[in-house]
């Protein structure tokens, strides 16, 4: 499969009053054509900053890319000019945001917002764009699209707004769709609808998807590959089968253990991960998870481990426990 996106050693920081917040600290991953990749992590793990850096949506200043590159279909987006980015955003990379109320323009009709990209990027005229927009609204399951076309976001329910967002994101057949917590603001029955829709559309158009989420259930349902982030770094990667069946990083294991499971009988107390995530104003010298890790060793405190291969299917983990000299640990 062709790789359409390759992120190399990406470092993104924000200048703040107290110093430099190192939100993303050396992230590497790639996305192949037609693949759905999940980036999982808690707030402050750097998952959204990574995604927004790909789209170059972070205001600069205060943000800046310290180091690294983002290669999208042969171009380095880190160096791209604003005009070049304008041609890529919406056309080659579509984006769906978490909150469909604040990410749609409240003063523009839904129809206007969908046709905007079609007219700009596809060179369609007004009536062609309208036809295509109606088709898109139908595709994402909005009933009565002719009437909906002229309505404003406030006339739509949360689920319908998210469908409209998906219609906008897909309007120009992007090669890559970045979905940043697309279902977090929605109720579960609506979340099920939106996930089904995204899976159907992905199969139909072969779009690559980067799904950013903290919900491991959504990941298990939708994605092929999983990237786990913590403290601005990638701590584990692998296929969803490997990540859920045999997680190798203590953080991933802790995350899976701390969640109650609907399919298992109740009674077992939850196993929380004690402590709080690291302060990225002064990130730890060693492993970022060290302070909360039950297996922490002396080496973890002072030396940051590398992301090393740990399984057959390309699974990698960033943990000293996978050093050849480390002692055996029972998961």
């Amino acid at each position: 499969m062709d790789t359409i996106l390759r992120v190399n050693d990406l470092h993104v920081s924000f200048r703040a009053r107290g110093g430099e917040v190192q939100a993303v600290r050396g992230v590497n991953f790639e996305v192949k054509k037609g693949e759905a990749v999940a980036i999982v992590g808690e707030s402050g793990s750097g998952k959204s900053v990574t995604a927004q850096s790909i789209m170059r949506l972070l205001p600069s200043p205060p943000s800046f890319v310290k180091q690294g590159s983002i290669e999208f279909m042969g171009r380095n987006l880190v160096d791209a000019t604003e005009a070049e980015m304008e041609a890529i955003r919406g056309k080659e990379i579509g984006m769906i945001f978490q909150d469909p109320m604040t990410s749609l323009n409240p003063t523009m009709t839904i129809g206007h917002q969908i046709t905007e990209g079609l007219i700009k990027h596809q060179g369609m005229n007004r009536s062609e764009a309208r036809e295509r927009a109606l088709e898109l609204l139908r595709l994402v399951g909005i009933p009565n699209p002719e009437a909906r076309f002229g309505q404003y976001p406030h006339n739509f329910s949360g689920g319908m707004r998210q469908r409209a967002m998906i219609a906008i994101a897909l309007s120009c057949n992007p090669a890559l769709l970045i979905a940043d917590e697309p279902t977090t603001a929605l109720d579960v029955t609506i979340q099920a609808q939106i996930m089904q829709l995204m899976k159907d559309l992905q199969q139909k158009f072969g779009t690559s998807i980067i799904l950013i989420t903290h919900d491991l259930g959504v990941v298990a349902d939708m994605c092929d590959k999983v990237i786990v982030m913590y403290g601005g770094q990638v701590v584990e990667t692998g296929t969803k089968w490997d990540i859920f069946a045999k997680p190798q990083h203590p953080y991933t294991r802790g995350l899976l253990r701390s969640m109650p499971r609907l399919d298992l009988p109740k009674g077992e107390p939850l196993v929380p991960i004690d402590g709080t995530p690291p302060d990225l104003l002064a990130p730890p010298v060693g492993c970022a998870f060290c302070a909360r890790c039950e297996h922490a060793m002396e080496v973890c405190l002072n030396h940051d481990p590398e992301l090393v291969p740990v399984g057959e299917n390309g699974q990698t983990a960033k943990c000293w426990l996978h050093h050849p000299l480390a002692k055996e640990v029972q998961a």
Partner: protein
Amino acid sequence: MSASAVKTKGAAFQPVAGASGEKLLEVRNLSKFFPVGSNETLKAVNDLTLSIGKGETLGVVGESGCGKSTAGRTIMRLYEPTSGETLFNGRNIYKMRGSELKTLRREMAMVFQDPYASLNPRFNIMDVIAEPLDIHGIAGSAKERRRKVEELLDLVGLRPEHAARYPHEFSGGQRQRVGIARALAANPKFIVCDEPISALDVSIQAQVVNLLQDLQKRLGLTYMFIAHDLSMVKHISDRVAVMYLGKMIELAESSELYANPKHPYTQALLSAIPIPDPLIEAQKERIVLSGDLPSPIHPPSGCPFRTRCPFATEKCAKEVPDFREVKDGHWAACHYA
């Protein structure tokens, strides 16, 4: 709905008490309507009847707009009800006045969803937690006040030196601990937890839930746990009530409800939740409901769920299903359950 219809229905309905048998709280035909626009009403909570046993945790689940938060707030008398009553230790709380009401306020407390918005940013933690002590005149002296606050901080896993800090210096999980300490300050018996963990990160949620469970054991608390996260509700609750459009549509022991849901809405809700296990997800036949929640201002006739129900018949449009006991201690409002 006429008042007499409400009464007869309520009389036929004798809900089961909690595990311990002794009831702390009984809610009878409670309704809370809000006027909206011109002569329209939003029936946020419509004829709710349930009881909560001493030491029990009752989970209340449902999607946004189903009335679960309004139910919690009306049961605490943060809202005056439109009709119905809530008995706390056998006394109707909506009839309480003066000192009796003030005592009630000590016995009921609330933990809110958003730990960022529910703490006064201008108060330090000492004052945030001591506010209930001051209001009820519990702490006699400044020394006593400090001692009480430090005790509460210790109880929720914070340190005494945190008392001098301000809310903005804490993370979400720590703030929620402060919120819990404040709720516990006046020594309540009953706590309404309104989505206490939904604003927190996954790894922190377990910390707060374990704390709540631990406190319940140590202090003999009774909880009403309102949430939309069904996995967490299953974990923490003894019994679970499911609400839809202001109505309670199912109520059962937690394990029973999840193993054996009777109402089509509960079935869809449970099936909609993605399980963090790709093997299960790959095999799962998910019931995907069509459509959105109808407006609670103009709810459908008959069964409120019929517009999205895959099994709806003509009868569902005509008759409101009774909330009946379909199995021992398992109640559902569906003609076909």
